[in-house]
């Protein structure tokens, strides 16, 4: 059964076709379609690169497939494991996924990606966080020293 495809024009110039069923999971697209009276020939421009869009499609397809074929026993834990693997990527990619999830308004993906980055912050000391996120401290050497004195537990 052929499903309708929507055309999305990515930020890097690439136009991608996405199954309508998948794209309508994204609330921004859903709204845009409703506003345009479901005209299927409209090419929707989006502020996302094709590389990231591919990943978002992968995520939505997986979640859609799981919802419709849920063998309740394992479906939940399998999906969780799949999600964990999906966000087991570098900070750069996570960052773009967060932006995409927000732009397309995909609450569960936004939640998943933000939690993953939050997990990269929890349990870490200050220097480790700086390294992970490529942060250069904007404190003066004197201020830095003062902080280390005042909060030794953050730097030991």
């Amino acid at each position, binding site marked *: 059964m052929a499903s309708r495809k929507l055309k999305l024009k990515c930020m890097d110039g690439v136009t991608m076709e996405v199954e309508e069923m998948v794209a309508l999971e994204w*609330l*921004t697209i859903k709204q845009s379609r409703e506003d345009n009276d479901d005209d299927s020939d409209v090419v929707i421009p989006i502020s996302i690169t094709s590389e990231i869009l591919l990943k978002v499609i992968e995520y939505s397809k997986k979640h859609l497939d799981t919802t419709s074929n849920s063998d309740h026993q394992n479906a939940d834990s399998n999906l969780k494991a799949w999600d964990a693997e999906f966000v087991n990527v*570098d*900070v*750069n990619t996570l*960052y773009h996924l*967060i*932006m995409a999830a*927000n*732009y397309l*308004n995909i*609450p569960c993906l*936004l*939640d998943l990606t*933000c*939690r993953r*980055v*939050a997990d990269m*912050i*929890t*349990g*870490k*000391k*200050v220097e480790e*966080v*700086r390294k*992970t*996120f*490529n*942060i*250069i*401290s*904007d*404190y003066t050497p004197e201020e830095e020293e003062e*902080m280390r004195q*005042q*909060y*030794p*537990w*953050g730097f030991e």
Partner: protein
Amino acid sequence: MTGNMRLKEEGEEEEGASPIIYGDVLELILSYVPLVDLAHACLVSDTWKHAVSSSLFHLNKLRPWLVVHSQTTRSPYLTTTHAYDPRSRLWLHVDKPPLRHVSPLRSSHSSLLYMLSPSKFSFSRDPLHLTWHHAQPPLVWRMDPIVAAIGPRIIIAGGSCDFEDDPLAVEIYDVESRSWDSCQSMPANLKDSAAATWLSIAVNGRRMFVTEKTTGETYSFDPATKIWNGPYELRPDPAVFFSAIGFAGDRMILVGLIGDAENVKNVKLWKVDEETMECEKVGEMPQLLLEKLKNGNSNLASIGVTMQGDFIYIHNTSESGALLCCEFKIHDEIEWSIIENVIIISDQTRMGRLVFTCSDVGIHDVHKALSSDNRRFSVQSVE
């Protein structure tokens, strides 16, 4: 965490380097980071410090912790402390140096924690109980008094067990002058129930309200004038057989069990007007949660209640079963929830008694605990 927030563009990134995450994305991510980790996050850079502040203010605000102190019943009264942070829905184990001169811990309201022994009266009011004040004990020896901290004064009433002592004796400790003073005894009607077992108290900045749990007979006490007022009958529903009171922020709340101990039908909440003592119903526990509170046991004779800010925590005093919480949201609508993963606490009850306190913990408090008291917070994962 839903909604289509407009995240600002983050700017150009260098080839091969991680993007510098800041602005709205950073604040959103920080809203998922537990408070104890935000304590580190705000030291990362000045930008992150502001992002933490902003995230706490706009996205996921601070919420009062429920602190559970588990203490063995015999000397040396070893204490284990766990805290539930509703902002991140997780349990923390609080690793801290043991208190010196320990005796049984107690709490009558919000964040107050105290210990009373024949030689000493010690209390702590700060959110994480970093500072303890040690004083001479009151003149009258008491086993189970009601204790209230109001401004610079601590009031101790009732609980005496010596045959010669006045069961209604009230003494006030002035924190600044470190001295005790006696004053007007509790009303005579409370003669047979003048102890924490029978009385529930609600304390705000000015007064203490005392209610008899089984009858709803209520009195108020003003430590400035040292005068008792009442009785008032706090029984908004004749079917209430047990009630507990407290202050959730500015609201005086009455929590009532309806029916009887073998068959509790509902748990309802009323807001009490301090001046008129009139009650207005503000909420009712969902039946599903009531079943969890009973924990498979049909008998529910009493509940323990502790409140702070917009939160009320309710537990079953006889079992280490469900811990429930309700939060006042916009327009004072109540949102009920069950606190998950309480098995940590269940394990502790086999060892001793549980004492519950509730406090507004902020980053500053966490910093202080980590710096000056050598505390360590570890997030407990049960899975």
